[in-house]
């Protein structure tokens, strides 16, 4: 049924993937339905909540607003690509120990937004963290422990993560 569509090729979490899907299909749906990467979530479908946030070519995007056509040739990182060889990423460690995740539904997007922030600004202030995460809504935590998590991860991370989406 999908064979009729031309291939769209992109790299997800370091792996080259080909999909034959309608070009206007949302990147979020392609990730979840065609590639079975269900870590990215849909909260609103209109780019307000950020729970579908992924990193694409070094930018943070709402994957519910990206037609997969735009991902042709792109390097994409989702929450599934954050841990390395079974080791939690410093951000995941920090969220676990600081209480940055409660119900967990905003967490995948929040982690990607935090990774993006630290890639551009390895030692952010709380004000910079607030700004960097302003597009990601969390209804459980009141954000404080998310800020603590990002600060804690930043303090533990020696290598800037700028090249992460491309280098893996």
């Amino acid at each position, binding site marked *: 049924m999908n064979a009729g569509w031309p291939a769209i090729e992109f790299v997800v979490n370091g792996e080259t993937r080909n999909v034959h899907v309608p070009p206007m299909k949302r990147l979020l749906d392609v990730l979840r339905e065609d590639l079975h990467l269900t*870590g990215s979530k849909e*909260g609103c479908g209109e780019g307000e909540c950020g729970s579908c946030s992924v990193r694409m070519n070094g930018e943070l995007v709402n994957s519910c607003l990206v037609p997969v056509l735009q991902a042709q040739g792109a390097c994409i990182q989702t929450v599934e690509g954050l841990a390395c060889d079974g080791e939690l990423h410093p951000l995941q460690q920090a969220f676990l120990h600081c209480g940055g*995740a409660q119900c*967990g539904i905003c967490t995948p997007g929040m982690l990607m937004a935090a990774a993006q922030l630290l890639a551009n600004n390895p030692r952010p202030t709380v004000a910079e963290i607030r700004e960097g995460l302003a597009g990601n*809504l969390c209804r*459980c935590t009141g954000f404080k*422990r*998310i800020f603590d998590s990002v600060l804690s991860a930043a303090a533990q991370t020696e290598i800037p993560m700028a090249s992460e989406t491309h280098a893996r």
Partner: protein
Amino acid sequence: MSAHAKTRIVGSPVPRKEGVDKLLGRARYVDDIEREGMWHGATVRSAIPRGLIRSIGFDRNIDWSEFAIVTAADIPGHNHIQLIFADQPCLADGKVNHCDEAVILLAHPNKHKVREAAAAVRIEYEPMPPVFTIEESERQDVIVWGADNVLKSFLLEKGDVDSAWVGAAHIVEGEYRTGAQEHLYIENNGVIAEYSADGGVTIWGSLQCPYYVHKSLLAVFDLPEDKVRVIQTETGGAFGGKEDYPSILAAHAALLAMKSGHPVKMVYDRMEDLAATTKRHPSRVRHRTALDGNGKLLAMDIEIATDGGAYSTLSSTVLSRATLHSPGPYVCPNVRVRSRAWATNIAPYGAFRGFGAPQAVFAIERHMDEIAAAIGIDPIELRRRNFLHDGDTTATEQVMREPVILDQLLDRALAESGYNGKRARFAKENKTNPVKRGMGIAAFYHGSGFTGSGERNLNSLAGIDVTADGKVRVLVSSTEFGQGTNTVLTQIAAEAIGIDYEDVMMAPPDTGIVPNSGPTVASRTSMVVGRLIERACLQLVALLRKNVGLGETFSREEFFAASERYRATKGEVVSLCRYEAPPGIFWDDQKYRGEAYPAYAWSIHVAQVAVDTVTYSAEVEDFWAAQEAGRVLNPVLAGGQIEGGVAQGIGYALYEKVLLQDGHMVNNQMTNYIMPTAEDVPPIHVYFVEIPFSHGGYGAKGIGELPHDGPAPAILNAIRDAVGISFTSIPLLPEDLFAKLAVRTGVEEVAAV
């Protein structure tokens, strides 16, 4: 008493039990799950608030033979959702009572096609006059529910209010209003249903109370208990919003599964979830208060009205909690509370964190500041003169037998916030600064567990077992939806037995496996279910000592070896406990008198607010929350509960407005229903004073709802302090500030000329 003992695991910040799965993105929420041959469901909803259904038309351009179509006529059992009363239909049958009420269900293999098809069903109505507000419902010109539009009423009386007015030095009246509030869990409501003639109904879903859904499906399908199975999937936030609504959605999906012969997934999108599912009850509370010359309360006459929406759902119990929290944490010899929940043609209101208490606390704590201003006493001093203390009686004549430390909490909150110094400084600075700052407080309690005889009626059963592969499993229907059930209950079990946190896991939240430990609501899980788990563990250790020679002291290896010896000789290693009320508890449901709650959590909130008189925006700049909620089982989780609740309370006060037009929510999107973001929430400073409660799990009392009760009155009190004008209604948006502040500024300017 275990509550006072030194502990290894309880009280420590062990990481969240299911945390790693959530952080890796591998936790399975309902929309992440596929079933073989699964179809997708959609709901055709009423477009009008009230009327008779005249006809239903299906667009001829669609091949309807591809679809499963369900109407009320397809319901094999009773067409109602079983909760407290059975007035809400599963599907509207000939008549609709609110906008977005479910009328027809569709299923199809393609989820996009089923949504298009739902939009192509035309329902013709004969409209009937609707009722949209508490005031319209009170007038009773149009009766939309029962004989008089009253969903429920309560009368609480202590002393003799009517004779207290004569001789009072002061009488102060006030009226306070709160708006609806949406839970805005980031995961919308969703379920998957399967049906077979032999196996019955199986549900996987995002929900709080598996046994509520179970009970409701028994009625809709007219099935015996063992033919309905409900399994909670990872749940992305709930806050009360997934207490009762999933019973409706599960029934819908199961009807479609039965009709189509396929598993059916129904996951709402945001617009549907916002328009059709429950919200916090809007309220209007009137206070009339008598005081003596020393500012001591003589009488409180309180009238509560809530908007319950089109069906009764949980309005009666929400009203009960509002009634019991309305007099505040004060001693008063004469109290009368008259409360009513009114029916309107709005989508039914339901459970939301706090459950009536935030509405009641907003009114009394705003009113206390109004009294202070009216009689010329400092608002802090007025509260101190009237606080409840150990041995005092509440409005229901419940004697406070556990310590009440409001003064201590108040001292702490004032000191930490620098309240007095800041108030004085702001008063000076406000004279010349267009940004006016102020400090406000709220003092309040939240009753832990079900109201009155509720816990005894629930008769919860919970326990543990030991698996053959050497793990202890916690057997409860109490669910995790972010608040930390998994973590605190496994902490309690590990502590009570004397094994490691890693040795304990949760049994799947599946009615086919776990007993009914009651709903996960009412700040009851740590206190009530936690206590049951503690008891079940001690009971198992005693059993192993008696039967298979487990020593007085033992290692974890010895515990599991003893469990295996027991399994080999006696069978299953399991220990269950049933709820036992603390001794001396008495509650009269008729007179509304006695022990309203087994325990109370106490709190003081302080808000620092800045009101910009150029933009008319109000911003909470800093926030302090001091509380006593018994033993803190996990400081990271407990702190997170307080901070998250405060953030929701800030949204309730200043951001979140449900806009209704002809009974339909018109801002049903995240673009126009606004919650506080990472840039809006202030620093929140949290302080716990721990007094273990002897009947709670390791001394815990309820904590989940407490923090939502205080922010709104603290913030509006701070705004009063900042600008000298009273606001009595929430949400308080910039346009509302403008309406009062701009008028005043205008008058002053005229006067200056």
